């Protein structure tokens, strides 16, 4: 009891100004929180056929999300084929679980995730063989599409960014100039214009008859764009490594790539985990921009659903739901990165 009082006094009521602030903030919370809880939970409608079913209640119309959830998750992916998406994500989930169990060899699990898994996932998503019906990428959508774009974007832009960062610090002038040129051009252009270029202009330059997938083009655009940012984050880490580390590695006879792989990158990447995760999170949210080249990612499909005449007036619910899901993914990434940072701490 006494402890609580000292704590209260020290943290909330130490001066008249602090007491005043505490009281007014409590008052503000009292004004805001109850109506919010009312809206989200108490007065909300959870199931229904249309907006009309929600009208009797004052709260949120979660019936809208409930009715459309399949579409939010899979977009226009054919209903009969959706199990394929589920299977692919279930396998990925199992792989992740295996990765986090300390008893298995992480190296092997990550190798599985990076090499055979994407092929398997592609086979399941796109189909066209093994008796699976082809599902064109234009039918992919919803959270599924968002995760595909973010997953591929993150896994591809990270190594590419590292290579660009090394290139920028290379002693070979051609490699250095190319890296600097690429990074500076891409960083100086908005992602929207990169996506426009990838989807509208690129086909103009390709020979007739050659045409590759719109999703593929968006993926290349996003990956290249984020790798430029990643490169600069990684370069920051490389520059923080003392010269003595390079010299010690050189004097032992380690070559350039070995030195980078065993000595420099492990230390540099550890230093820049916050920046790297920052870029990952930015990439995750930037995937919503594929909306402007006509792809319906998670946000896109939610937005489209709000214009349904049956559900007019449910935009707020849609966006709140969307925001909550994005936040969940981004926050998980952030927490995981903190864990990795703590694990790699060597106390120096």
């Amino acid at each position, binding site marked *: 009891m006494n402890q609580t009082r000292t704590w209260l006094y020290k943290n909330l009521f130490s001066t008249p100004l602090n007491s005043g602030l505490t009281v007014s903030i409590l008052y503000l919370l009292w004004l805001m929180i109850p109506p919010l809880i009312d809206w989200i939970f108490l007065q909300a409608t959870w199931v229904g056929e249309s907006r009309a079913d929600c009208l009797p209640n004052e709260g949120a119309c979660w019936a809208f999300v409930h009715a459309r959830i399949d579409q939010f998750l899979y977009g226009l992916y054919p209903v009969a084929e959706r199990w394929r998406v589920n299977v692919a994500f279930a396998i990925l989930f199992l792989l992740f679980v295996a990765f986090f169990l300390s008893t298995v060899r992480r190296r092997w699990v990550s190798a599985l995730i990076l090499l055979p898994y994407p092929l398997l996932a592609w086979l399941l998503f796109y189909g066209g063989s093994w008796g699976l019906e082809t599902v064109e990428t234009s039918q992919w959508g919803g959270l599924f599409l968002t995760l595909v774009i973010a997953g591929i974007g993150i896994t591809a832009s990270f190594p590419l960014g590292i290579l660009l960062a090394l290139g920028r610090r290379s002693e070979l002038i051609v490699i250095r100039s190319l890296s600097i040129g690429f990074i500076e051009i891409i960083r100086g252009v908005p992602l929207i214009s990169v996506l426009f270029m990838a989807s509208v202009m690129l086909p103009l330059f390709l020979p007739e008859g050659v045409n590759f997938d719109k999703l593929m083009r968006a993926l290349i655009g996003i990956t290249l764009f984020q790798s430029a940012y990643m490169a600069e984050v990684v370069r920051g880490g490389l520059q923080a490594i003392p010269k003595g580390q390079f010299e010690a590695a050189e004097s032992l006879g*380690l070559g350039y790539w070995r030195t980078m792989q065993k000595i420099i990158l*492990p*230390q540099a990447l550890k230093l820049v985990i916050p920046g790297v995760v920052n870029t990952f999170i930015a990439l995750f949210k930037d995937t919503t921009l594929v909306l402007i080249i006509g792809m319906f990612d998670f946000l896109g499909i939610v937005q489209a659903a709000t214009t349904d005449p049956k559900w007019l007036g449910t935009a707020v619910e849609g966006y709140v739901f969307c925001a909550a899901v994005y936040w969940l993914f981004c926050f998980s990434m952030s927490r995981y990165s903190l864990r990795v940072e703590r694990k790699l701490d060597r106390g120096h």
Partner: protein
Amino acid sequence: MATKMIEMRGVNKWFDDFHVLKDIDLTVTKGERFVICGPSGSGKSTMIRCINRLEEHQKGQIIVDGIELTDDLKNIEGVRREVGMIFQHFNLFPHLTILENVMLAPTWVRKLPRREAHEKAMYYLDRVKISDQALKFPGQLSGGQQQRVAIARGLCMEPKIMLFDEPTSALDPEMIKEVLDVMTELAEEGMTMICVTHEMGFAKTVADCMIFMDQGKIVECSPPNEFFESPKSERTQQFLGQIL
């Protein structure tokens, strides 16, 4: 005739306009131990860093164990494999354990199987009396211990030549001895060594030849008794007067 391990002929080096090394001539034969001293900025470190090409010389020839140092990366890597180097600030790899620090080069440069590299690493850690710390990280060791690990790391490549660049300058006084003891032992076993240091007691016991450098030149090169008793040049006398 004794084999020449290091031969420097007319070596010159510039940092931009600054002439750091001026016509250096030096021959070290197998098993010889050279100690280099001189005021700071005299080019001592630069000279020994040229021997494993951490610094590039612009004129003259450096031949190490029969391999001439040129732009050829093959030659440079060949030389580095035979030359170990100990730095003033140890330069251990902080993200690896002591054992991993020592095993790294034998594993990836000499391509030894893991078990063999492990055995060898433990053997050399034992020699510098630090094998009980093998699983710690460098950050958990004292300066003297870290420098001994660095020596074990160098030795684990079984080099023919060891270069020491002020190995005790960054250490607290009470840790200097443990490092010098290891170096003395090494010298007594017949390792070819070049050592930049101001530990004159150490120099007197182990050196076959003392070198005094000033302003990028080798001013004096003579056996230790002669060097300390009757230095030829006035500059050497002056310097010894200050540090002894």
